[in-house]
């Protein structure tokens, strides 16, 4: 085991796959010589050379087009879109081209590629560099959607994404880059479409994703002190969705809370709540509760942004109010 940051886990995960398979290539803005704007890809250019670690112009459409064309002709590209907000300027490639190609061509073309992107708020970047946009991707048929919360998951899920035959959107949370965790040594490969129970409790289930996972765990500790014992499930992957693990946790506890760092309308929590209600209505002790940001763009100031994104206190207060 090695203690490393989420940021270093990104470089380790990419390096592991570049090392393993000559078909893997990596491209994006500032990813090579500069080592990435979040310093998450340092050392890769030196190790693998400019043919496989390619610095691009600020041309998001050109980046994803190159990744797509390379994927359909035998390579396995990892493309970085620096901030997930910038996906909006290449959404045609994401949603119209990459997502639909296999279906429209009746299975003639596979696109084994990964789009990595810095997602989420909490860094005071304002509304055009802070959004949590995993919902956008989840709504498009043909995209797998992954959002790891720990350094170990970054390495393992990234490897699984690179080896997957379908396009995967890999949402790294910007706020988690400096966080640390133990990562097993040697090659790690995780499985897409699997949720992880991070904490077991009997009274309620809290579902969380990415940066909301450590907050949910802190909240669960505080709740335990107040006599409420929560299960915390790290959803990890929205598509495919590990419904089995989620339903099992909710059925055992009878009460569901989702913690989402995205605007409330059409958040992923709504989709999961709908699945839960349809499948295990009889096991529920009360209506599922969603904890989300309000339906607003993210503000920038410390006070405003902190009050917009679900905090540990908000999770604790919401759960206590319902459970009492």
């Amino acid at each position, binding site marked *: 085991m090695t203690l490393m940051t989420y940021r270093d886990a990104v470089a380790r995960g990419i390096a592991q796959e570049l090392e393993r398979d000559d078909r893997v290539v990596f491209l994006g803005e500032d990813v090579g010589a500069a080592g990435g704007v979040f310093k998450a890809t340092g050392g890769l250019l030196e190790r693998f050379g400019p043919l496989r670690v390619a610095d691009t*112009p600020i*041309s998001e*459409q050109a980046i994803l087009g190159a*990744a797509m064309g390379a994927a*359909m002709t035998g390579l396995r*590209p990892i493309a970085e879109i620096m901030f997930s907000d910038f996906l909006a300027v290449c959404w045609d490639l994401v949603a119209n081209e990459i997502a639909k190609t296999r*279906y429209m061509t*009746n299975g003639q073309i596979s696109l*084994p590629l990964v789009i990595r992107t810095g997602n989420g708020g909490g860094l005071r970047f304002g509304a055009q560099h802070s959004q949590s946009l995993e919902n956008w991707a989840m709504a498009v048929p043909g995209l797998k959607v992954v959002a790891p919360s720990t350094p170990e998951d970054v390495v393992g899920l990234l490897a699984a994404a690179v080896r997957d035959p379908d396009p995967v959107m890999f949402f790294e949370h910007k706020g988690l880059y400096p966080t640390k965790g133990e990562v097993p040594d040697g090659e790690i490969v995780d499985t897409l479409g699997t949720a992880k129970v991070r904490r077991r409790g009997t009274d309620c289930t809290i579902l969380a994703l990415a940066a909301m996972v450590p907050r949910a765990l802190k909240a669960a500790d505080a709740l335990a002190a107040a006599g409420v014992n929560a299960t915390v499930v790290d959803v990890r992957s929205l598509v*495919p969705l590990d419904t089995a693990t989620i339903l099992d946790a909710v059925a055992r506890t009878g009460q569901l809370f989702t913690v989402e760092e995205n605007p409330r309308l059409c958040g992923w929590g709504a989709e999961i709540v709908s699945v839960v209600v349809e499948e295990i209505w009889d096991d529920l002790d009360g209506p599922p509760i969603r904890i989300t940001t309000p339906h607003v763009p993210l503000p920038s100031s410390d006070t405003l942004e902190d009050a917009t994104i679900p905090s540990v206190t908000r999770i604790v207060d919401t759960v206590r109010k319902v459970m009492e």
Partner: protein
Amino acid sequence: MPTPTDLGLPETPAFRHEVDAETELELYRSMERLRRFEKRAYDLFLQSLVKGTSHLSLGQEAIAAAFGASMRPDDWTFATYRGHAHTLARGVAMEPIMAELLGRSTGLMAGKGGSMHLTSVEHGVMGSYAIIGAHLTIANGAAWSAKLRGTDQVAVCFFGDGTTNIGAFHEALNLAATWKLPVVFVCENNQWMEYTPIGSVTAVPRPAADRAAAYGLEPVVVDGNDATAMYAAARDALRHARSGHGPVLIEALTYRHGGHSRADPAKYRPAEEVEPWLLRDPLVTYRAHLLRKGVEEGVLKGIDEDVLREVDDATEAARNAPEPDLTLIERDVWADGSSAWRN
């Protein structure tokens, strides 16, 4: 007969071309196939058998035919929603294309793609793309892959004049030039951006070629209605890209005989513009050229009859083919063949 200069075509051919007699006949046969197929598709549309929309390239056949005849089997074509001709020209049979237009199970994509999304990977036809400009960036990716894998394949990307005003065009040209990618960009300048004359919304007279210079590329303008000139241009461009010299951009000047899409009668075009272009119909002029060179009328008639039979057979087979199975709806979102998003 209008002269090339009357139509704004280059006065002297961009390429000195000597093309052998066999290739000239092949170009004629190819253009005839594209023309007859699309005319039939239009007839079937009028009978409500071809559904949705279709974008014909009647009048533009010389460009697709020239590239079809000069590309290597392992080169890649990236076409637009106006892509019937480019797909046929790579050697794809008429029947699966016709069946796709009719939405039948024997269609090239079993009815899941339609007119605007023709793809035949085994023929190097890597898709027809219906959002303007995206596929220039995708063709770059294929070219990048050829370069990294050390093959000498070339990606050829066709697009219309309207594409030159979209951001992806500029992003693609810049990346192709800086990465020296083996890609040939072919602008089919048919003078009209959908329903608007390209000149009225474009700051330079040659929408593709004039911009090519900004990315360090040699501007190449070709008479896109002259199959031999187009063939020579295609051959030279492919050679340039294949030998590692980076991308080429060709602006082929041509004219679409019909409207933008099947619902458009193109009444907005002045007769004095349309007529001289119709006189320079690439098939009519090529036929005359071949006869002048001593090809016997009977040889050309034989080709015409073969092609007509091919179109008739394809139509008949497509009309008699079964409708697609409903299980196709949920098939092939993912590589495992399914569309499952949850366990």
